[in-house]
C-alpha cells in the first residue's frame, strides 16, 4: 500500500496539560496504528509512540502541537489523536481561559 502522510495541528485543552497520564493515553492511541507518528512543538519533534519522548514535550494548556502520521493508516491515526486531545481532552477538566 502506498505511504500516506496526514498532518493536523491540535491545541492542548485540558487544564493540567500533557502530563504523564495524558502522555500515556496518547502513546496508547498512537500505538494502535501502523503509521509512524511524530509530534512537534515549537522546539522539538518527538516520537508519538514513546512515553519518554511525549513527556518531554511538557505541553501546558493552550500549547499547540503538530501531529504528523506517515503510513497506510495515517489519516485514521491523526483523526483519533485529534479527537483524544481536543474532544476527549484525555478525560480531564477543561482549561478555563482567563
Amino acid at each position, binding site marked *: 500500500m502506498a505511504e500516506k502522510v496526514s498532518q493536523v495541528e491540535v491545541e492542548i485543552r485540558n487544564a*493540567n*496539560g*500533557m*502530563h*504523564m*497520564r495524558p502522555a*500515556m493515553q496518547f502513546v496508547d492511541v498512537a500505538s494502535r496504528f501502523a503509521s509512524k507518528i511524530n509530534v512537534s512543538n515549537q522546539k522539538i519533534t518527538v516520537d508519538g509512540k*514513546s*512515553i*519518554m*519522548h511525549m*513527556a*518531554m*514535550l*511538557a*505541553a*501546558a494548556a493552550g500549547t499547540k502541537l503538530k501531529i504528523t502520521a506517515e503510513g497506510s493508516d495515517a489519516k485514521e491515526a491523526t483523526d483519533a489523536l485529534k479527537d483524544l486531545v481536543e474532544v476527549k481532552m484525555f478525560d480531564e477538566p477543561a482549561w478555563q481561559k482567563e
Partner: protein
Amino acid sequence: MKIADVISSKAIIPRLQSVKRDDAIKELIAILEKTGKISEENSAEIAKAVIKRENEASTGIGKGVAVPHIRHKLVKKIVAAIGISARGIDFSSLDKQPVYTVILLLSPVEGDQHLQAMESIFEHLQNDNFRKFLRQSETIDQIKDLLVEADQNPSW
C-alpha cells in the same frame, strides 16, 4: 529548568534499602523530610497520595525507570529525590521489567513548574548513557556529578 536544581543534592540515595515499590516511595519521602524539604506532619499524607497515584497508573515507564510524582496542596515548592536500586523493584512497569532508578517528584498544585521539571527529567532519561551511568552510580557524589554534567551537555 535544570534537573540539578530540582533534585536536592541531599535527597540522593545511591543504594535504596527498600525492595518493594511503596517502601521505596516512602524511603525517598523520608529523605526529603530529613533534609527539611517537606515537613514531618505532611510526609505521611504525601506518601499516601503518591502511592494512590501510582496505583491508578504506574509511572514505571520502562527501561528500568520509574518517576512517581504528584501535585499536592501540601507541597509549597517543587522538589525531587532520586534513588538507585541494585536488585530492582517491581513497579508494574509498562515493559514488565524491574526498576533500578526511581525519581520522586513533588510539585505544588499551582504553576507550570511541574511540567517543566518533567520535561527536564525525561529529556535526560531518554538518553541511554544517562540511564546507564545513573544505574552504575554508587555514591551521592557520582550521581550529583552526573546530574550537573547532564544539565551542561544536553546532547552528550
